Protein backbone atom coordinates (compact mmCIF):
# COMPACT_ATOMS: atom_id res chain seq x y z
CA UNK A 1 0.00 0.00 0.00
CA UNK A 2 1.21 3.47 -0.85
CA UNK A 3 0.39 6.65 1.03
CA UNK A 4 -0.66 9.80 -0.80
CA UNK A 5 -1.22 13.26 0.70
CA UNK A 6 -3.98 15.74 -0.06
CA UNK A 7 -2.47 19.12 -0.91
CA UNK A 8 -3.70 22.55 0.17
CA UNK A 9 -6.13 22.72 -2.75
CA UNK A 10 -7.52 19.24 -1.95
CA UNK A 11 -5.86 17.66 -5.00
CA UNK A 12 -4.39 14.19 -4.99
CA UNK A 13 -1.49 13.05 -7.15
CA UNK A 14 -1.76 9.49 -8.44
CA UNK A 15 1.31 7.39 -7.70
CA UNK A 16 3.35 6.52 -10.80
CA UNK A 17 2.62 2.83 -10.31
CA UNK A 18 -1.14 3.49 -10.64
CA UNK A 19 -0.67 5.87 -13.60
CA UNK A 20 1.17 3.13 -15.48
CA UNK A 21 -1.13 0.33 -14.39
CA UNK A 22 -4.34 2.12 -15.38
CA UNK A 23 -2.79 4.10 -18.26
CA UNK A 24 -4.02 7.36 -16.73
CA UNK A 25 -3.63 10.49 -18.85
CA UNK A 26 -4.36 14.17 -18.13
CA UNK A 27 -8.09 14.97 -18.70
CA UNK A 28 -9.14 11.34 -17.98
CA UNK A 29 -12.46 11.24 -16.15
CA UNK A 30 -13.35 9.13 -13.10
CA UNK A 31 -16.57 8.09 -11.50
CA UNK A 32 -16.18 8.60 -7.72
CA UNK A 33 -18.20 6.67 -5.12
CA UNK A 34 -18.15 5.89 -1.44
CA UNK A 35 -18.51 2.18 -0.64
CA UNK A 36 -18.19 0.80 2.90
CA UNK A 37 -16.40 3.93 4.02
CA UNK A 38 -13.93 3.66 1.13
CA UNK A 39 -13.51 6.10 -1.75
CA UNK A 40 -13.75 4.13 -4.98
CA UNK A 41 -12.60 5.63 -8.30
CA UNK A 42 -13.67 4.08 -11.59
CA UNK A 43 -11.91 5.21 -14.75
CA UNK A 44 -14.41 6.23 -17.41
CA UNK A 45 -13.91 5.54 -21.07
CA UNK A 46 -12.58 8.52 -23.03
CA UNK A 47 -15.31 10.28 -25.00
CA UNK A 48 -14.68 10.43 -28.72
CA UNK A 49 -14.61 13.88 -30.25
CA UNK A 50 -18.00 14.54 -31.95
CA UNK A 51 -16.36 15.23 -35.33
CA UNK A 52 -14.33 12.01 -35.20
CA UNK A 53 -17.46 10.13 -34.14
CA UNK A 54 -19.33 11.65 -37.09
CA UNK A 55 -16.59 10.77 -39.57
CA UNK A 56 -16.55 7.19 -38.34
CA UNK A 57 -20.31 6.76 -38.59
CA UNK A 58 -21.44 8.29 -41.88
CA UNK A 59 -25.09 8.61 -42.78
CA UNK A 60 -26.59 6.84 -45.76
CA UNK A 61 -28.52 8.57 -48.50
CA UNK A 62 -30.28 7.19 -51.52
CA UNK A 63 -27.81 7.48 -54.45
CA UNK A 64 -30.67 8.58 -56.72
CA UNK A 65 -31.46 11.41 -54.31
CA UNK A 66 -27.79 12.40 -54.26
CA UNK A 67 -27.78 12.63 -58.04
CA UNK A 68 -31.04 14.61 -58.12
CA UNK A 69 -30.07 17.01 -55.35
CA UNK A 70 -26.57 17.97 -56.46
CA UNK A 71 -24.77 20.21 -54.02
CA UNK A 72 -24.43 23.16 -56.39
CA UNK A 73 -28.18 23.11 -56.96
CA UNK A 74 -28.84 22.96 -53.20
CA UNK A 75 -26.62 26.00 -52.68
CA UNK A 76 -28.51 27.79 -55.43
CA UNK A 77 -31.77 26.84 -53.71
CA UNK A 78 -30.55 28.05 -50.29
CA UNK A 79 -29.18 31.41 -51.35
CA UNK A 80 -31.39 32.44 -54.22
CA UNK A 81 -34.92 31.40 -53.29
Amino acid at each position, binding site marked *: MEEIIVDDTYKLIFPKKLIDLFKIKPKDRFDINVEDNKIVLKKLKRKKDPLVELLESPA*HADPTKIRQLNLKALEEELWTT
Partner: protein
Amino acid sequence: MRKILVDSNIFIFANIKEYPEYSVAKAKLKELINNHKLLINAIIVSEVQYKLYRLLGKEESFNRTKKILDSKHVGYETVEQSTILKALVFSHDNNIRINDAIIAAHAIDLKVGVFTDNTVDFEKIPDVEIIPLRV
Protein backbone atom coordinates in the same frame (compact mmCIF):
# COMPACT_ATOMS: atom_id res chain seq x y z
CA MET B 1 -1.47 24.89 -34.56
CA ARG B 2 -2.30 25.94 -38.13
CA LYS B 3 -5.80 26.94 -39.20
CA ILE B 4 -7.87 26.26 -42.30
CA LEU B 5 -11.36 27.32 -43.40
CA VAL B 6 -13.37 24.27 -44.47
CA ASP B 7 -16.05 24.71 -47.14
CA SER B 8 -19.47 23.11 -46.59
CA ASN B 9 -19.20 20.53 -49.38
CA ILE B 10 -16.24 18.88 -47.65
CA PHE B 11 -18.36 18.28 -44.55
CA ILE B 12 -21.23 16.98 -46.70
CA PHE B 13 -18.99 14.50 -48.53
CA ALA B 14 -17.49 13.33 -45.23
CA ASN B 15 -20.95 12.79 -43.74
CA ILE B 16 -22.60 10.63 -46.40
CA LYS B 17 -21.08 7.31 -47.40
CA GLU B 18 -22.71 7.17 -50.84
CA TYR B 19 -20.78 10.17 -52.15
CA PRO B 20 -17.86 9.08 -54.33
CA GLU B 21 -15.84 11.77 -52.51
CA TYR B 22 -16.69 10.34 -49.04
CA SER B 23 -13.43 8.43 -48.49
CA VAL B 24 -11.11 11.19 -49.64
CA ALA B 25 -12.96 13.91 -47.69
CA LYS B 26 -13.00 11.80 -44.53
CA ALA B 27 -9.32 10.86 -44.82
CA LYS B 28 -8.28 14.45 -45.48
CA LEU B 29 -10.29 15.81 -42.53
CA LYS B 30 -8.83 13.13 -40.24
CA GLU B 31 -5.35 14.06 -41.41
CA LEU B 32 -5.97 17.81 -41.00
CA ILE B 33 -7.24 17.56 -37.40
CA ASN B 34 -3.83 16.28 -36.30
CA ASN B 35 -2.23 19.67 -36.89
CA HIS B 36 -4.95 22.12 -37.93
CA LYS B 37 -7.93 23.83 -36.37
CA LEU B 38 -10.84 23.57 -38.83
CA LEU B 39 -12.54 26.95 -39.09
CA ILE B 40 -16.19 27.54 -39.97
CA ASN B 41 -18.43 30.59 -40.13
CA ALA B 42 -22.16 31.33 -40.31
CA ILE B 43 -22.27 30.81 -44.09
CA ILE B 44 -20.61 27.40 -43.85
CA VAL B 45 -22.84 26.30 -40.94
CA SER B 46 -25.96 27.42 -42.85
CA GLU B 47 -24.92 25.49 -45.94
CA VAL B 48 -24.00 22.34 -44.02
CA GLN B 49 -27.30 22.41 -42.11
CA TYR B 50 -29.41 23.06 -45.22
CA LYS B 51 -27.72 20.49 -47.46
CA LEU B 52 -27.88 17.81 -44.75
CA TYR B 53 -31.52 18.73 -44.13
CA ARG B 54 -32.37 18.24 -47.81
CA LEU B 55 -30.36 15.02 -48.11
CA LEU B 56 -30.93 13.36 -44.73
CA GLY B 57 -33.86 15.09 -43.05
CA LYS B 58 -34.36 17.39 -40.09
CA GLU B 59 -33.08 15.28 -37.16
CA GLU B 60 -29.97 13.93 -38.86
CA SER B 61 -29.12 17.42 -40.08
CA PHE B 62 -29.51 18.87 -36.59
CA ASN B 63 -27.40 16.16 -34.92
CA ARG B 64 -24.61 16.19 -37.48
CA THR B 65 -24.35 19.99 -37.70
CA LYS B 66 -24.24 20.20 -33.90
CA LYS B 67 -21.47 17.60 -33.72
CA ILE B 68 -19.37 19.69 -36.08
CA LEU B 69 -19.92 22.76 -33.89
CA ASP B 70 -19.19 20.80 -30.68
CA SER B 71 -15.89 19.37 -31.89
CA LYS B 72 -12.70 20.61 -30.25
CA HIS B 73 -11.09 20.42 -33.70
CA VAL B 74 -13.51 23.00 -35.10
CA GLY B 75 -13.41 26.72 -34.42
CA TYR B 76 -16.28 29.10 -35.15
CA GLU B 77 -15.24 32.50 -36.49
CA THR B 78 -17.54 35.50 -36.70
CA VAL B 79 -17.61 37.50 -39.92
CA GLU B 80 -16.88 41.19 -39.42
CA GLN B 81 -18.59 43.97 -41.39
CA SER B 82 -15.31 44.84 -43.11
CA THR B 83 -15.15 41.25 -44.42
CA ILE B 84 -18.72 41.48 -45.73
CA LEU B 85 -17.86 44.71 -47.55
CA LYS B 86 -14.84 43.03 -49.14
CA ALA B 87 -17.05 40.08 -50.14
CA LEU B 88 -19.57 42.43 -51.72
CA VAL B 89 -16.84 43.79 -54.00
CA PHE B 90 -15.61 40.26 -54.83
CA SER B 91 -19.14 39.18 -55.70
CA HIS B 92 -19.70 42.23 -57.88
CA ASP B 93 -16.34 42.24 -59.65
CA ASN B 94 -15.92 38.49 -60.17
CA ASN B 95 -19.52 37.47 -60.76
CA ILE B 96 -19.65 34.92 -57.95
CA ARG B 97 -22.41 34.31 -55.43
CA ILE B 98 -22.21 36.30 -52.19
CA ASN B 99 -21.92 33.15 -50.04
CA ASP B 100 -18.73 32.03 -51.78
CA ALA B 101 -17.46 35.63 -51.81
CA ILE B 102 -17.93 35.85 -48.01
CA ILE B 103 -16.05 32.59 -47.48
CA ALA B 104 -13.19 33.82 -49.71
CA ALA B 105 -13.01 37.26 -48.06
CA HIS B 106 -13.12 35.64 -44.63
CA ALA B 107 -10.22 33.30 -45.51
CA ILE B 108 -8.18 36.29 -46.71
CA ASP B 109 -8.93 38.30 -43.56
CA LEU B 110 -8.16 35.35 -41.30
CA LYS B 111 -4.97 34.69 -43.34
CA VAL B 112 -5.88 31.03 -43.86
CA GLY B 113 -6.51 28.79 -46.85
CA VAL B 114 -9.87 27.40 -47.95
CA PHE B 115 -10.25 23.62 -48.13
CA THR B 116 -12.83 23.17 -50.85
CA ASP B 117 -14.07 21.18 -53.79
CA ASN B 118 -15.35 24.35 -55.45
CA THR B 119 -12.08 25.53 -56.93
CA VAL B 120 -13.75 27.08 -60.02
CA ASP B 121 -15.45 29.91 -58.10
CA PHE B 122 -12.67 30.56 -55.59
CA GLU B 123 -10.06 30.77 -58.35
CA LYS B 124 -11.84 33.88 -59.63
CA ILE B 125 -10.77 35.74 -56.50
CA PRO B 126 -7.17 36.85 -56.29
CA ASP B 127 -5.21 36.18 -53.08
CA VAL B 128 -7.31 33.24 -51.89
CA GLU B 129 -5.21 30.24 -50.99
CA ILE B 130 -7.11 27.19 -52.22
CA ILE B 131 -6.51 23.75 -50.78
CA PRO B 132 -8.36 21.51 -53.24
CA LEU B 133 -10.02 18.24 -52.28
CA ARG B 134 -8.99 16.68 -55.55
CA VAL B 135 -5.32 16.94 -56.44
